[in-house]
């Protein structure tokens, strides 16, 4: 390679007000056609660094030093006008949140055409044709219809494809993808990333992939840069970084990858604690204004037994009905048919007191599952309201013990907003466990967390389960996490169970095609045979 396409040289970015360094003296290059991954946890400065390349620093941040040379031009010396001309044809960006990065008020076609008409002299007809071709290229089934449709008509994965298509239309030399698939499920993630890599290869585009997922790095990137607290801690080829990391932090990230627990999975026997037969849940179809379809069957006849103390994982892509199943099993949403038996007793549609008090739910998003106006202590104490004859001192003692067990002793007087995502999730877990439930539904409990935090929270869940002996329905699209915690695995597709079995059976010899596809799409780091540099330059 001759001169690199992008060269970031001793870049420093600081908060304008406090002078605190956000990006602290980082340097890296991206060669033409190269696929570079920037790895780091939230707050490591990776997004800020990427935005600087586009000249789009968030307000309140200032560049305090260093140079960025893009395609032979020093960004600092460019006029705003020239900078605007670079965005699009030279650098394109795909954002993390596909649900909000398209303008809901403008049709897909108009948004795609915007860039083309701005940067290229083309006739209306040519623009339309190019858009249609590109939509077909990203495997959207009906390009002509999509062109005239509005963003809300599409799922997250489809929107991310549209986003990718509109960015790649301009054939940028550099594509910055900021956690482009974090919000998507495993299968969709695979599809979108494969498309992205294919497109980049077609156009000779370099890709800067920002991610926290080492599995993706292993699968797609040729080189990786690891960032922590604004600094580059390690850089090298993917293989070097993943198999022979030099720095402790990289080591830590790799260790945080979920691994199959050693030892034999618990195979509980005896009477099931919870037994579900023929459960069906429908949505819509009722008097709703804009939806005319008859009920959508989200859960379609599920039979499932859960024994005391075991962890049953429910896996599947988004829309497979796994979340609905969890809610319906807790009798939080009405079912149209089926039976749930808990400890041999039938649970009626309006859950009885006994069942309500012995079952709990841990939510996916720790940012919205805690009441922002209650202190941590009050949140954890709230379930104890329903424990009969509990003296105030005893209640305080139990709350303190629980907080201590989730590693947050002395946090009782804090507010939720003062805590990090991982700490909040610990509080949510503490709230779920404090009353000593027999059955806990954990709905994607770690998917909103950073890798190292995920590992900690999964360990915490396992430890608490060993200690308190509750049964757990672990809902997840992340097979890597499932492999670490589950005793049994249930694979769902379209509201039905397509396969179930012990963890080892499912992971080692999947039978159903859907299970195989899910497993193949799961980004995992195979240390014996690194998949690095799969994408030819």
């Amino acid at each position, binding site marked *: 390679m001759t001169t690199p396409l992008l060269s970031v040289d001793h870049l420093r970015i600081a908060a304008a007000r406090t002078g605190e360094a956000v990006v602290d003296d980082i340097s890296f290059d991206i060669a033409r056609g190269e696929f570079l991954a920037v790895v780091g946890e939230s707050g490591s400065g990776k997004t800020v660094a990427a935005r600087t390349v586009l000249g789009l620093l968030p307000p309140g941040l200032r560049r305090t030093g260093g140079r960025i040379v893009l395609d032979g031009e020093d960004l600092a010396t460019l006029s705003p006008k020239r900078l605007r001309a670079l965005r699009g044809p030279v650098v394109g960006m795909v954002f993390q949140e596909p649900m909000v990065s398209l303008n809901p008020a403008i049709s897909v076609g108009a948004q795609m055409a915007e860039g083309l008409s701005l940067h290229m002299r083309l006739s209306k007809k040519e623009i339309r044709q190019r858009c249609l071709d590109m939509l077909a290229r990203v495997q959207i089934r009906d390009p002509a219809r999509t062109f005239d449709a509005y963003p809300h008509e599409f799922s997250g994965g489809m929107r991310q494809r549209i986003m990718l298509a509109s960015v790649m239309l301009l054939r940028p030399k550099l594509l910055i993808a900021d956690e482009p698939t974090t919000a998507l499920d495993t299968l969709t993630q695979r599809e979108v990333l494969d498309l992205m890599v294919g497109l980049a290869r077609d156009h000779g585009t370099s890709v800067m992939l920002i991610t926290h997922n080492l599995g993706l790095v292993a699968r797609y990137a040729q080189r990786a840069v690891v960032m922590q607290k604004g600094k580059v801690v390690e850089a090298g080829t993917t293989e070097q970084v993943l198999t022979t990391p030099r720095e402790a932090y990289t080591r830590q990230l790799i260790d945080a990858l979920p691994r199959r627990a050693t030892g034999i999975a618990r195979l509980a026997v005896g009477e099931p604690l919870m037994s579900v037969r023929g459960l069906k849940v429908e949505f819509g179809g009722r008097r709703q204004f804009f939806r005319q379809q008859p009920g959508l069957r989200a859960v379609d006849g599920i039979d499932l037994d859960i024994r005391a103390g075991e962890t049953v994982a429910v896996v599947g892509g988004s829309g497979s009905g796994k979340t609905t199943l969890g809610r319906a099993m*807790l009798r*939080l949403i009405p079912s149209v048919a089926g039976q749930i038996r808990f400890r041999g007793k039938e649970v009626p549609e309006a859950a009885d*007191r006994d069942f*309500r*008090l012995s*079952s*709990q*739910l841990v*939510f996916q*998003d720790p940012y*919205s*599952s*805690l*009441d*922002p*106006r209650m202190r941590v202590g009050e949140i954890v104490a*709230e*379930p104890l*309201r*329903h424990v009969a004859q509990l003296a105030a001192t005893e209640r305080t003692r139990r709350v303190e013990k629980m907080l201590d067990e989730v590693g947050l002793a002395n946090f009782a007087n804090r*507010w939720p*907003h003062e805590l990090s995502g991982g700490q909040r999730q610990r509080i*949510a877990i503490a*709230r779920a466990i404090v*009353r000593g439930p027999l059955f806990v539904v954990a709905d994607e409990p770690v998917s909103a967390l950073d890798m190292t935090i995920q590992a900690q929270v999964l360990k915490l869940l396992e430890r608490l389960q060993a200690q308190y002996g509750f049964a757990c329905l672990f809902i997840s699209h992340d097979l890597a996490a499932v492999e670490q915690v589950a005793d049994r695995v249930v694979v769902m597709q379209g509201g039905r169970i397509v396969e179930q079995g012990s963890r080892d059976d499912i992971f080692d010899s999947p039978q159903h095609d859907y299970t195989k596809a899910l497993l193949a799409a799961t980004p995992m780091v195979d240390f014996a045979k690194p998949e690095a540099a799969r994408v030819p330059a």
Partner: protein
Amino acid sequence: MKMRANTAIGGFLIGILFATAVTAAFWTPFDPLKVNLRARLQPPSALYWLGTDEFGRDVLSRIMAGAATSVFVSVLTVTFAVIIGAVIGVITGYLRGWTDRIIMAVNDALLAFPGILLALAVMIVTGANKFGIVLALGIAYIPSVVRVVRGTVLSIREREYIEASRVIGNSELYSMARHVLPNSLAPVAVLATSMFGWVLLAESALSFLGLGVPPPAPTWGNLLAASRPYMESAAWLSIAPGICIALTLLGINLLGDSLRDRLDPRMVHG
């Protein structure tokens, strides 16, 4: 720092207002109702600090006495409208379904009706007195509180911590009172402060139309109304109550902002 300045200035202005209202109950420089035809329309002087009106009544005394009435009417009206409006708003937003549709249809009809006309209609039934004003303006302002509270409740009730409360085994009523209501009140605090201003002005407007607190009892509204014919010859008559209304509104708005920040644990920092 900015927040503290807001609180201090707002608190100072409102403090003066309440002090004036309380003082006026016991003492004013002159009897606010005493007519003195020999001292008609006198400009501000050492004796009459803010001058006298067309009947020779001391303006300062009348403003002090008016402060008590105006504050009483405004505070009571806002409290009335906020409490009733918040309860209706939470119920309609939380229950949804037919309850919601019926209540909101009535509410929207009331909203579409000009508030002051609605108040006029109520005043005609109740007659012109303090409580009539409170009831009339209260009813006129309830619909906007309902709208705001219902909107917030609709978004709050979908949050996961409400579902978490249900999983814990809390009753719907408890979830509403403990989780939904406190989280829906921030916009109401802001609305209430601006409402205070509207009520003060509406009370002036009603007085102006002869339907407010009946003369000769002074309120800021009827002081302003009575000053209109003398705007050119005796400007002090309108300037003094006008400044009082403006400063009160400023104080309330500043205090309202800091109240909202105070109410939100996320905003309380060093």
